């Protein structure tokens, strides 16, 4: 038997039938991710990053290829792959605590009420949101909502944490504080993470590996860059190192010279 990585994407392709014949969105995607690795997927809008994440989540089925997680084929959504959505998707009729509880009740059904409650509060503490446990999402700021979204995902103790542009809708300062929170949590839990992002600095700061996607249609992986910066990373100190600048330069070069934004090219 061939050795497979913890999370393995093998020959993934997505083709939609359209009025003008089949449209290929993604092709020949092979990606191997080790346990505990933090991988950032970066690429221009419309390159199919979100589709790829949805395939790992099991929300979308690929036309070709297979996703393996720990040796098992992924063919439907499941609690072992938690998703942090860009729009946080908290349920507005539940309090912060109840939103996280919903996930915990599903994944820890064997545990007692008290244990589950304690686990909810523990995870809210990891994102520093215990103070808002009784509030509803409508009463929270965008950054706080996303913190709860993160708590809900990590509370499921998933095998893979999938983040779909988790900080895309936040302002720069809030984004920085959430990135720090994610790094702190990652240092503790050492999750396997796949994160989609548009932000070069975010990718370099957070990830062990940055996977760059070519432009669609028929997008695929263009470059796979290891980020060897030592951890823990501090956003100010790290940004001054040559390694950081090198990684940043590589990605910028890929995104703006080799595969520049298709909209700019058309203009």
């Amino acid at each position, binding site marked *: 038997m061939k050795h497979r990585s913890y999370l393995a994407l093998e020959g993934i392709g997505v083709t939609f039938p359209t009025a003008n014949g089949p449209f290929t969105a993604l092709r020949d995607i092979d990606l191997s991710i080790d346990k505990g690795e933090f991988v950032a997927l970066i690429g221009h809008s419309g390159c199919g990053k979100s589709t790829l994440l949805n395939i790992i989540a*099991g929300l979308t089925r690929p036309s070709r290829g297979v996703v393996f997680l720990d040796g098992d084929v992924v063919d439907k959504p*499941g*609690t072992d792959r938690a998703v942090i*959505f860009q*729009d946080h998707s908290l349920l507005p*009729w539940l309090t912060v605590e109840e939103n996280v509880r*919903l996930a915990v009740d*599903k994944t820890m059904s064997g545990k007692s009420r008290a244990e589950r409650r304690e686990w909810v509060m523990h995870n809210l503490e990891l994102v520093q949101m215990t103070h808002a446990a009784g509030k509803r999402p409508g009463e929270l700021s965008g950054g706080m909502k996303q913190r709860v979204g993160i708590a809900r995902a990590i509370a499921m103790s998933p095998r893979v944490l999938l983040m779909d542009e988790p900080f895309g809708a936040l302002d720069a300062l809030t984004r920085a504080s959430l990135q720090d929170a994610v790094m702190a949590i990652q240092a503790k839990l050492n999750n396997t993470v796949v994160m989609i992002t548009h932000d070069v600095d975010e990718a370099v700061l957070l990830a062990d590996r940055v996977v760059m996607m070519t432009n669609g249609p028929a997008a695929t992986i263009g470059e796979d860059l290891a980020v060897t910066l030592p951890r823990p990373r501090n956003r100010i100190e790290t940004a001054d190192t040559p390694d950081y600048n090198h990684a940043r330069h590589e990605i910028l070069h890929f995104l703006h010279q080799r595969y520049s934004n298709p909209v700019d090219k058309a203009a």
Partner: protein
Amino acid sequence: MSSSPVRIASAKDAPSAKEGLLPQAEIIPYPGAHPAAAEMKKRIDFARHVGKLRDAALAVLPTLLMIAALLMVWEMACSGEGSSLPAPSKVWTESREVILHPLKGVEMDGIGIKIQDGGDVGIAGHVLTSLKRVAVGFSLSALFGIGLGILIGQSKFAYRALDPLFQILRTVPPLAWLPLSLAIFQQAQPSAIFLIFITAIWPVILNTAAGVQNIPTTYRNVAKVLALNPLEYFLKIMLPATVPHMFTGLRIGVGMSWLAIVAAEMVQGGTGIGFFIWDSYNSSLLTDTIVALVWIGVIGFALDRIVGWIGRRIARQA
């Protein structure tokens, strides 16, 4: 506070104030302790109270003025000898008994309300009988309407199969169902209930279905990622997400079921506000009809507000 070390100026440093060159305010140690402060608070509260009352009055005043103006126009237009429509003053003189004794024949013992069987019953008695019928018919349409709405909202096949039927049936007016209803049920009581049911159910179905169809994809994705089973999805996501739409449907439905009551009670004679109108028309007591119309309008308005209020309460809690 006087012992505060950072205090810079004291009374001693400012002799001019002492000599009365500056107007001196009376110092109030803390609010509520001084009789003047208590008096002030009372006055402020009173002013606030008056302000609220004035706002309420200002909100109602235009309505009252309009009603008064309409009554005056009506009075002037219909006060002639040969007028076919009775003027308000005539309504008052001829239907005084109906207006002043609405509770005739209605007995209340503790919680239960007893309405005298047949014979002479006041208008409130008729209204209560009608409300009972609406309660039964509307409850049935709420139950089946929400069920069917969820079904066609959830299943594309059911939607394609049933929606065109519903769209056609919902335009059939209540009175048109009357012959069919009588033929099916043979008896007055169930056919009257059926008329209310069949009139009120359509908005409940269609609004519930729209609510289910409009559950945001993100909520559906959350349910998938959390691997919620169908029951959990129904209770934790679909129901709370759909409640506002449901209540829009229920609110329109309760209004329509009240609209159907006259038709329903033309079938089932003897009691009810619909019967009362029919009866007063047959006895040429047009003034009684007018009193009944006012009652129907006010009760219909109240029903609408009550369902709307319940909907808001539940939506806030859900």
